[in-house]
């Protein structure tokens, strides 16, 4: 059995607001196998980015974290100061959403990559430069990019630079938050293929966070679908996409506008998710669910495990194409 690289138990992340406490993530358990590609899917505001930030130990005051997060055997919540600084990049790194805008506009690509390397490994500037050139080769960029500034690069090139930085110190875990949303379709494909290759070559584990379920199903071994701070379904990516068991997963897939939907009517999910302040104690999707019954409105459904090992939080999980 593969070892677990990241283990999250009972994680809740809350932020105070004028109207009350926002529970961005609410009692989530998650375990990610070493060397796998794991996907977290869901709509904006479901808490998927917050989980990514939690894995990096980046939830800041006034946000507060409950539960345990272990990455590579280290308790992330107890890391402080210098220890935490070294933990980032070296053990866990993150490719942020819109990462192309996270590069420093006034320093060259080479300076930015070598800064990370020198800061964490000591070493000379020359060694770091060689390492940086090597990294650029890995992400298939010509080495003269080192001398260039971010504004001289295309979106796809910048995204490759950011990926090069994320793998610079061979971290055990790389978190990629919407790594391709800002790119056009052809570069998207190149970046995803690259990410997959890099992971295979280095043996790192990758967590991909995206609202695009089909992208996640294509890239990932396993995935978790989130709704309003909770995981509603998790399992093998292909199983979840080909026969979603939770009505929310199904609705999410059906509402995605794809080329094969031309001439068909795509239904959006009716209504809006409830507020993350004062979370309901029943099923969170019940108000928008076409299959909801009295028990769904009364209490929160417990986890049930399907034959293929999938875990679903629903009183009425779908099987196959039933109810479509």
């Amino acid at each position, binding site marked *: 059995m593969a070892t677990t690289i990241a283990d999250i138990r009972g994680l809740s992340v809350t932020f105070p607001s004028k109207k009350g406490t926002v529970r961005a993530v609410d009692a989530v358990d998650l375990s990610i196998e070493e060397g796998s590609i794991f996907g977290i899917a869901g709509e904006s505001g479901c808490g998927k980015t917050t989980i990514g930030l939690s894995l990096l130990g980046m939830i800041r005051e006034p946000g507060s974290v409950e539960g345990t997060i272990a990455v590579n055997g280290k308790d992330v919540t107890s890391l402080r100061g210098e220890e935490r600084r070294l933990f980032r990049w070296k053990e866990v790194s993150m490719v942020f959403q819109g990462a192309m805008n996270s590069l420093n506009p006034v320093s060259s690509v080479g300076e930015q990559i070598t800064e990370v390397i020198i800061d964490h490994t000591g070493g000379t500037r020359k060694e770091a430069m060689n390492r940086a050139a090597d990294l650029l080769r890995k992400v298939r960029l010509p080495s003269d990019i080192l001398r260039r500034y971010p504004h001289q690069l295309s979106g796809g090139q910048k995204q490759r630079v950011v990926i090069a930085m994320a793998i610079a110190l061979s971290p055990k875990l790389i978190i990629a938050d919407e790594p391709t949303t800002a790119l056009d379709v052809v*570069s998207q494909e190149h970046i995803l293929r690259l990410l997959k290759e890099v992971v295979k070559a280095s043996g790192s584990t990758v967590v991909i966070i995206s609202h695009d379920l089909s992208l996640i199903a*294509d890239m990932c071994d396993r995935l978790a679908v989130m709704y309003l701070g909770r995981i509603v379904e998790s399992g093998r990516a292909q199983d979840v996409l080909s026969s979603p068991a939770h009505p929310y997963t199904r609705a999410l897939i059906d509402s995605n*506008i*794809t080329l*094969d*939907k031309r001439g068909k009517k795509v239904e959006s999910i009716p209504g809006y998710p409830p507020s993350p302040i004062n979370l309901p104690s029943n099923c969170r999707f019940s108000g928008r669910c076409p299959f909801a019954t009295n028990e769904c409105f009364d209490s929160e459904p417990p986890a049930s495990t399907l034959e293929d090992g999938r875990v679903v939080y629903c009183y009425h999980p779908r099987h196959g194409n039933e109810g479509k």
Partner: protein
Amino acid sequence: MKENETIAMDRVSVRFTSQGRVVPALDDITTTFRLSELVSVVGESGAGKTTLGRALLGLAKPDSGAVMFRGRNIHRLGKREMKDFRKHVQVVFQDPYDVMNPKHVVLDYLSMPLRFISGVSSRADLRSSCSGLLDQVGLEREFLSKYPHQLSGGQKQRIAIARALATEPDFIVADEPTSMLDASAAAGILNLLRKLAAKRGMGYMIITHNMGVAAYASDRIVVMYSGKVVEDSAADDIVNAPRHPYTSVLISHAPLSQRSERKLLAERDGSDADPDATDPWKLSGCRYFARCPRGTEECRKVFPALSTVPGGGSVACWNPLVNDDGSRVS
């Protein structure tokens, strides 16, 4: 349909100067859109699709050529006629948050075009007109007193559409109306636009990088690359039998419900080539040459004109994926 119910571009070029060189964001574009037409303009970032929309709206002034609305050059209109043009052709932007004043409630935002373009002035009239607009986009009148930060992305986009409807336009240009939205909200917005178009006999242009969105929402698709229109055809043809090599690459990369079923077409790998030799702006021939899997010497030298192909539609390519009898090159 009346003969001049169109908005058209006649040899329109719009140039920008960037890092000391002139970049033609739109290069000699001639095309006509019926005001009742449902059309999408597709291309990657930098293709010139936003500039095309802005030129149609009169927001980007052509360096040469003319934009004609109902047969008249929009840059030769008098002040009052220009106001009238704005009434007929409206716009919805990508990120509605950018254009909404955070200190104004929805009522203020929706009132503006009514006051300044349609000349409604009494508070009671404004209120009832604005509630009517909200109703058309599927929002309750309670939204009149909300601030932008109290709205979800989908709700904001609905309000932007309501504002565009305020002047009862004939045609709406929507620039990436769904790219900031979740899948479900995006479907809601496109369904709304389609419903409004059918109900009001109105047409629209959706500018998008997403071929799936274009195929879902329109009858005609214009594909742009580096300031040029490379294919302009019925949406069914674009989806099922794209004729330009670039269109067929885009179609092969477009999202499918079962992503694993896609058969991706490769482009020529230009990453090792001399950047100057592959810079689309420096080529005298086809701009897509450096990436094109079907490129020949001819393509390098002379830019192919947009011309009709057997089977209908227009393509700018020396080697389109179509035979003389209209069948598709396999």
